[in-house]
């Protein structure tokens, strides 16, 4: 039976909620903290910052990542910047404005209290990162610099050239390594989580596989934090790292954690277009490029001329035309969908006619090449390496691609899932972004969750656990979880079919792009669900995994991830099908205005879907968290 669920939002005025929470949250005294153990899975911005912060407080932390070093987590690849409310530019920014921008950017499908807290904590993050030595862009005088970003009209984005994610992550990673040296963090790199272990209904540990040996291990703690990022890689071609996956959150979902809004994957407007069938991923070009680059397509279909030969009056600067007040800085869902419209109308450019131009000629003429080089030089270099084209001389070709998961594990205000003792932070939760994430808010949310929220809310939970002894990994729950994990791996290896996990993944990705990507329809989603079910059936019978379970085996790692994707993909389609409205990243063709804009339905769909696992991936239960807009009246989102 579907139920309505509560988010445990503290009472009081919006701007008092978090302060009140912190003032009332339970504390653990320092001598008790050293008796308590915490598992943090993932070492990106959320995981590393949470692990370091909790270790600094005195808790014993076990930190896990599948990469060879925590420094490689995919937060490292975020380029453009991180938002924070400092109002350094005196351009009218405030916590309230940042909150509104985020809420509006998310198409009024996020929780007011969480979104406000994000804006509220943002300033502290910049202080923290600067103190760690993150070399943010500076004015000649020594003050911090800002730039503007999609979806807003102020300059509140802090950046470190085009490598902001890398520098923030290195800051968090260094803090993590500092605690590793002290012994407060025990680091398990090249470990992948296979299952979550519950004892008496509480999260008490995980089962992992050591990727260098194949050894399956048990790890216990007083609670588990998942900081395992997004699952955009489910589309196969995406901007995510090859190893990004949904397995940790999906397996937690199968143990009882609700999965929220899984169909809301942001399709990023500025990635490099696919160049051939062999392609394994799409590379993102920072959205900050839209500050100075102008997006256009030729006015005529199938125009084969090189871009520099197409005169101004034969170009359609369609974002500037359609959205005059935001122009090229229109939010991501709008910019992506507009690009798709042009491509679908036969105006796409490039060999596969799957791209639009991002042109810097005007900016170079206005500011000079030097300025553009200083702002985006590394991105131009990257573009040249990948495509062989010099973008100072001709426009870049860009295309939309799957990027950020707004969906993820459902969490309450404490960032705790529906399983007691299981927290989800950063992109692995659904939290603050609503139906569409505003640019430069992802790094912010990951960091804020890890540095500033989890340390309070986790401590609040741990205060009741101080008399709980260390978790016994010989408990039958661990034995059972380990056995199940082993059986599944053996099943993959023993299947001995003739299609690799990667081949299945490519097929699945294509179904999702076509039917549950930039636009969705009832007919398409129903077809997708059927095709996914068939593909899942084939996967069980025809999977090919060479090698052994108890050994290094990348193919086996992929098989587990794709198996989970097969189930999650169906839930994404179910979720998209159940939401009979268009909002943010979710554009249902049946629900649009006369101008082709998204038509939201607040009366019936102002809720977060929180899906419950039933044992049958085709029969999930939809629970709802009603979104109550106590302080802001949702308005039609317009960027015209």
């Amino acid at each position, binding site marked *: 039976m579907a139920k309505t669920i509560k988010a445990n939002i503290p009472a009081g005025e919006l701007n008092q909620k978090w302060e009140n929470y912190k003032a009332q949250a339970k504390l653990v005294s320092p001598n008790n903290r050293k008796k308590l153990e915490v598992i943090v899975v993932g070492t990106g911005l959320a995981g590393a910052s949470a692990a370091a912060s909790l270790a600094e407080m005195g808790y014993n932390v076990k930190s896990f990542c599948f990469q060879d070093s925590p420094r490689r987590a995919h937060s490292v690849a975020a380029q453009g910047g991180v938002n924070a409310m400092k109002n350094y530019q005196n351009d009218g920014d405030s916590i309230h404005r940042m909150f509104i921008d985020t809420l509006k950017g998310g198409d009024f499908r996020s929780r007011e209290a969480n979104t406000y807290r994000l804006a509220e904590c943002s300033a502290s993050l910049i202080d923290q990162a600067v*103190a760690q030595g993150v070399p943010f862009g500076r004015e*000649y005088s020594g003050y911090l610099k800002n730039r503007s970003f999609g979806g807003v009209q102020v300059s509140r984005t802090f950046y470190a050239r085009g490598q902001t994610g890398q520098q923030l992550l290195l800051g968090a990673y260094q803090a993590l390594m500092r605690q590793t040296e002290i012994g407060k963090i025990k680091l398990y790199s090249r470990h992948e989580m296979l299952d979550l272990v519950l004892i008496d209904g509480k999260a008490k540990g995980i089962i992992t596989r050591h990727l260098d040996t194949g050894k399956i291990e048990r790890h216990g703690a007083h609670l588990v934090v998942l900081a395992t990022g997004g699952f955009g890689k489910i589309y196969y071609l995406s901007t995510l790292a090859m190893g990004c996956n949904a397995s940790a959150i999906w397996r937690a979902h199968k143990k009882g954690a609700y999965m929220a809004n899984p169909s809301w994957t942001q399709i990023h407007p500025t990635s490099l277009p696919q160049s051939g069938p*062999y392609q394994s991923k799409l590379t993102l070009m920072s959205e900050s490029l839209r500050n100075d680059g102008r997006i256009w397509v030729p006015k005529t279909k199938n125009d084969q001329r090189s871009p520099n030969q197409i005169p101004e009056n034969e170009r359609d600067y369609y974002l500037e035309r359609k959205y005059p007040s935001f122009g090229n800085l229109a939010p991501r869902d709008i910019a992506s969908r507009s690009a798709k419209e042009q491509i679908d109308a036969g105006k796409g450019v490039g060999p596969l006619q799957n791209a639009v131009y991002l042109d810097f000629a005007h900016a170079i003429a206005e500011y000079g090449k030097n300025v553009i080089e200083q702002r985006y030089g590394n991105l131009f270099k990257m573009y040249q390496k990948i495509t062989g084209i010099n973008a100072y001389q001709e426009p870049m070709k860009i295309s939309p691609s799957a990027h950020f998961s707004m969906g993820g594990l459902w969490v309450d205000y404490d960032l705790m899932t529906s399983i007691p003792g299981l927290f989800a932070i950063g992109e692995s939760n659904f939290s603050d972004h609503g139906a569409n994430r505003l640019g430069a808010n992802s790094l912010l949310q990951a960091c804020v969750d890890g*540095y500033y929220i989890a340390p309070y809310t986790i401590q609040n939970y741990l205060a009741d656990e101080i008399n709980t002894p260390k978790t016994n990994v010989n408990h039958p729950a661990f034995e059972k979880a380990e056995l199940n994990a082993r059986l599944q791996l053996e099943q993959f290896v023993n299947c001995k079919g003739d299609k690799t996990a990667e081949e299945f993944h490519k097929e699945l990705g294509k179904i999702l792009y076509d039917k549950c990507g930039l636009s969705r329809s009832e007919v398409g989603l129903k077809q997708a669900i059927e095709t996914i079910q068939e593909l899942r059936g084939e996967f069980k019978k025809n999977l090919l995994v060479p090698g052994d379970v108890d050994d290094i085996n990348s193919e086996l790692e992929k098989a587990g991830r794709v198996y989970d994707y097969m189930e999650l993909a169906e839930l994404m389609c179910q979720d998209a099908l159940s939401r009979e409205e268009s909002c943010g990243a979710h554009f249902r063709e049946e629900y649009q205005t006369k101008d082709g804009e998204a038509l939201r339905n607040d009366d019936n769909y102002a809720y977060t879907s929180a899906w419950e696992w039933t044992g049958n991936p085709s029969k999930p239960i939809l629970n709802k968290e009603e979104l109550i807009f106590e302080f802001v009246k949702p308005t039609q989102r317009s960027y015209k």
Partner: protein
Amino acid sequence: MKIYLKVWRQQHKDSKGMLVEYSLNEVDPEMSFLEMLDMLNLKLAKKGERPIEFDHDCREGICGQCGVMINGIAHGPLKNTTTCQLHMRSFKNGDTIYIEPFKAKAFPIIRDLKVDRSAFDAIIAAGGYVSVNTGQAPEANSIMVTHDEAESAFDSAACIGCGACVATCKNASAALFTSAKISHLAKLPQGQKESEQRTLKMVDRMEDLDFGHCTNTEACEVECPQEISVLNIARMNYEYNKAKL
């Protein structure tokens, strides 16, 4: 394109490795080097053979996890590029390509082209940070850093920790990696306070691990994907001497 490959295959850390020959007929010049390896691995898997293990993740040149010796050059022939950003257009039809793991005593081979670079984490753990706990930080603009200081610190901070500098060095020295972090933090006011302890601890840790000494051949800078300058090594030596005085 037709490409001939000679790939280092090694079962385990302690087993004996050897170069194994493969060939691919349908290589597209637009493919990345790792996508070419994917193609080979798919072929191997379909034949029931064990695919080649290699490290990679972001495939956009920033995570630092990929990296092999290609015809004896770390990350291959293209200047300042990671292996994932090397494309097959850099090779010619009919070329023979040698692919080997990064070789250094401090980077033991795990299997095939995969190596263990956790020694780099150990160097950072020794002192590669500013000792600031969460929540202690002052208002960001109270720490003034000029544009040039920030840019210069960034040049050092940009290291991705791929290990090409070690792999290409005849002594397998980690001087470029270590010095980049020392310089990054020493160039900023917030990192200067503990610069002496940091430098001593990081250099000592580097020497305790199985890295060799720097003899200023500067090969590291030549093959660094991030163009990290050897001037960082000079800076490290300066900081080290200053700390010792």
